[in-house]
């Protein structure tokens, strides 16, 4: 198929960017979206132009590196997948596809479609852990029984890949879904309860500092999350935060 691509090009964080239009022939439906961009880049290099810069790594939907706002939605039109898992069969011959970086004050553009998501790392550093030493001198794993429901819920929260689609989709660029997943992943387990109070306070404080917007419960994050992280985790964090604030 033949496609028209409107791609955001920006030299670096200091300069302004703009859309540029490219046309691409011979796109196969079996290509992933990123492979389609590879083909475009190969063309650009052959024409002595600068290839489009975008984040990507594992290309199997788990590392969370790939991003891209495709036709107005993070990771494109299909649900529950990342951009690297989006295949061109989701598009039609003659389509125009607009490709932009994830937009948020907390995610400044590095170059073209690549943004800096280190705000997420700082949120995790603020408390996303259980304070146990890694010496291995701990109790036998089976002495901490965890009911299956809690283990499964913690796992569901922990499947967050930190891609930033929640922020990108949210009209407020809020990071509540991400933060709540990272908070819940620990607080749902007995091991994580010990530090739960301080953890939620610290992580929310860091989230606010990074300049993300506020949650207005539109649910866009959940709908666009490639891992289907549930809004319940946001409610959970709100609850935990309130409890923690009251406790002090």
């Amino acid at each position, binding site marked *: 198929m033949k496609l028209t691509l409107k791609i955001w090009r920006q030299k670096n964080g200091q300069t302004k960017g703009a859309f540029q239009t490219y046309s691409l022939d011979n796109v196969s439906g079996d290509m992933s979206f990123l492979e389609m961009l*590879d083909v475009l880049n190969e063309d650009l290099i052959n024409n002595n132009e600068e290839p489009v810069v975008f984040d990507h790594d594992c290309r*199997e939907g788990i590392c969370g590196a790939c991003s891209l706002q495709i036709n107005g939605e993070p990771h494109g039109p299909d649900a529950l*997948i990342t951009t690297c898992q989006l295949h061109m069969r989701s598009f039609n011959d003659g389509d125009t596809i607009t490709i932009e970086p994830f937009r948020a004050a907390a995610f400044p553009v590095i170059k073209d479609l690549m943004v800096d998501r280190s705000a997420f790392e700082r949120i995790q550093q603020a408390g996303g852990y259980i304070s146990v030493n890694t010496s291995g001198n701990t109790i036998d794993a089976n002495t901490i029984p965890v009911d299956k429901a809690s283990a499964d819920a*913690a796992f569901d929260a922990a499947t967050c890949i930190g891609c930033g689609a929640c922020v990108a989709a949210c009209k407020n660029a809020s990071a509540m879904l991400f933060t709540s997943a990272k908070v819940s992943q620990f607080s749902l387990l007995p091991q994580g309860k010990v530090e739960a109070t301080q953890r939620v306070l610290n992580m929310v404080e860091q989230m606010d500092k990074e300049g993300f917007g506020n949650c207005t419960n539109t649910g866009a994050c959940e709908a666009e999350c490639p891992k289907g992280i549930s809004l319940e985790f946001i409610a959970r964090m709100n609850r935990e935060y309130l409890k923690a604030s009251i406790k002090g």
Partner: protein
Amino acid sequence: MSILDSKIPKGPLAEKWAHHKDSINLVNPANKRNIDIIVVGTGLAGGSAAATLAELGYNVKTFTYNDSPRRAHSIAAQGGINAAKNYQGDGDSIYRLFYDTVKGGDYRSREANVYRLAEVSANIIDQCVAQGVPFAREYGGLLDNRSFGGVLVSRTFYAKGQTGQQLLLGAYSAMNRQINRGKIKPYNRHEMLDVVIVDGKARGIIARDLVSGEIQRHSAHAVVLATGGYGNIFFLSTNAMGCNATASWKVHKKGAYFANPCFTQIHPTCIPVSGEHQSKLTLMSESLRNDGRIWVPKKKEDAIAIREGRLEPTDLKEEDRDYYLERRYPSFGNLVPRDVASRAAKERCDAGYGVNATGQAVFLDFASAIERYGKEQAAIHHISNPSAAKIRELGEEVIRSKYGNLFQMYEKIVDKNPYKTPMMIYPAVHYTMGGLWVDYNLSTTIPGCYATGECNFSDHGANRLGASALMQGLADGYFVLPYTIGDYLSNDIRTGAISTDLPEFAQAEKEVKERLEKLLNVKGTKSVDNFHKRLGLIMWNKVGMARNAKGLKEAIEEIRALREEFWKDVRVPGGLNEMNPELEKAGRVSDFMELAELFAMDALHREESCGGHFREEYQTEEGEALRDDENFMYVAAWEYKGAPSESVMHKESLDYENIKVATRSYK
């Protein structure tokens, strides 16, 4: 006597590690504060090592080309992690895990290292649970296990199909705790481009800030490499796009020996190649082989009909199917080790029984498992005389709960529903058992330079068993390296901070800059990917799943020619002082091109078939690998002498005192 000293402690196998820990030197806590360690790579091996070292009190700097440590490719490991916990009471033990690993590695790994790995494996699970890794549980609240290829017990712990992700998040959370304390300084989006040797010791690295392009000097008292494998040398592999051998290769060129580069694992269950545009291959967890049955049609005409779309696989009668693994290996069946399963698939496809358009695929069929589980569920729910549709529905539900995410992934890529029609799979490059040679302390042949995880060679011999990579990465990082590195660093307590103004740093920086500028200044006509793809084709066709002397010799010539062409005709757009992914790729591919030659040389010299290394000249009449223990029971450690072709091989002989070396049979 070889010049390689593996430093294996004396004494009985089961006491070596405990005894060694008791006798090595330690660094007191006050002194640890004055010692800096650089950890390159932040996957399971690097992340766990960085966290533990920081916890012990060392000042740690971590480096990753990714924008976050948690994006390292360990995250993509699906199936699970082995540990000799014997929670299932099915006869597992440290010795059995040790034995399985050595046997699975086709008797080409170092006994003492493997035993230690098995010994600390149980601790890993304790550790991970304590730090909140949500492993799968049974309803009683205890940990669940499953079984993996090449073993007869259930010792694999898992978190659905995302075990690697959960373990990495665990290691990263331990890192985060130390970052928050200021004990780890993370350098994300930084790539190590050389190691700096001062007075014969590794004392730092040269790194490039990938955002600004700035070349930086970082000093430390020791450098730990945890940079993963070099599977991307094949271009198409299950590795992440950025996975590379640059750090290992640079260290090799500065004096670290590279061991067994030809030992590469081809994973049997990957999604087949769909076309020219393919950028990477996607693995489907080996755990699928617990329930999936692998087959091709018995008759060639059926295979052709399926290929041309005239026949649906589900319409093929049971007696017309060839479940070739069950046929050839009745005792292990579909759960034979990876190398065996991969070769068997290739054998069938080469013989003309392949089932997708390219003829390079076999079926992985869940129909019988769905039926079996469906009947089981019907019985559990007291449904009498369930209809076939009901059984299917119940069975699919069980399969969904076990492998849901994998099935979804498959459907997204292939656009076919694997619940209804069998999956198509084909082997793909997955893991490299070879890597930097290390002694028992995980030290390379450069003092102060350590290698952990996939980037070293030590534990998997010629073939790695499933769910053992995660085990090794975490064992090295959490429990081995942090002890053994202290022995070396205990001599450094009075050294003080290492200055980055030393001439060795200036020289290394200059060399790095010159190489990058050289890449930019070729200004040729072909993209980096163009060369990388061509290199991959040479490797896959001639140094891939089956190798022979003639092909390997040709490959060596072709690699050299390609490398020469690369330096004359590559086009790297953009500049040095900016974000420039093409420049990053160019550097990595240029290193792959050198490693590829050594890789082929190693494969050529090893005139036997063992594990992932299959030489067509050395096989039994039934097509099984023919090992030559008489002449090749050693580790081939290559020393760099100015060019890959000049490399000198050193042998570390492998002595098996606790295992009877036998022909590996899974029949």
